[in-house]
């Protein structure tokens, strides 16, 4: 079955440092990988999408990579701030248009 695996342990990062979150997928490569941010009690908010033929995507302080050999996407937040503290979800979109979400990784940026 197709799965999205994210580190379930919380990640603590000092303010100003780069936070790196990992997303691993199983089976065949998805058409896209998406990253969302979710705050407690709220719905997820879309951040970035990367296609399987793209290696890297950037948006302001955010960067996403897609490695089809490792079956992995990395999500980076540079110059992290306490306001970046949230749960970050990785999701795969398959060619049949179905989306499968991971459990997310809780990120804490320490002041």
């Amino acid at each position, binding site marked *: 079955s197709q799965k999205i695996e994210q580190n379930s342990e919380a990640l603590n990062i000092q303010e100003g440092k780069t936070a790196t979150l990992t997303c691993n997928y199983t089976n065949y490569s998805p058409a896209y990988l*998406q990253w969302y941010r979710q705050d407690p009690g*709220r*719905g*997820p908010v879309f951040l970035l999408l990367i296609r399987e033929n793209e290696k890297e995507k950037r948006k302001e302080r955010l960067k996403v990579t897609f490695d089809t050999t490792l079956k992995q996407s990395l999500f980076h937040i540079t110059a992290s701030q306490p306001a970046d503290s949230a749960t970050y*979800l990785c999701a795969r*979109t398959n060619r049949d248009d*179905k*989306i499968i*979400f991971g459990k*997310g990784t809780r990120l804490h940026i320490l002041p």
Partner: protein
Amino acid sequence: EADIYQTPRYLVIGTGKKITLECSQTMGHDKMYWYQQDPGMELHLIHYSYGVNSTEKGDLSSESTVSRIRTEHFPLTLESARPSHTSQYLCASSPAGYSYNEQFFGPGTRLTVL
């Protein structure tokens, strides 16, 4: 902030009651989705719709039903609520077309069945 709304935000109800969770979007999106999410767990797709009069069941089996009579409206109904239905329910929408599948989520409804 996305233009997708869910009501109520919180609902506490007794076993056996019929409930309807409302979801509306003003973006004109053809695709709409319902997800169920327990604390610390992933979102599970329970229903989706690709347009008016189109509804499909998702990957997670659910006793709920949905309808899509209008593009902007996608309500979810539980005929007889049970404690096992206690969860967070998230509605989402996205534009039509395969190549652009970003989902816009509502704030969610936290349902507690006693």
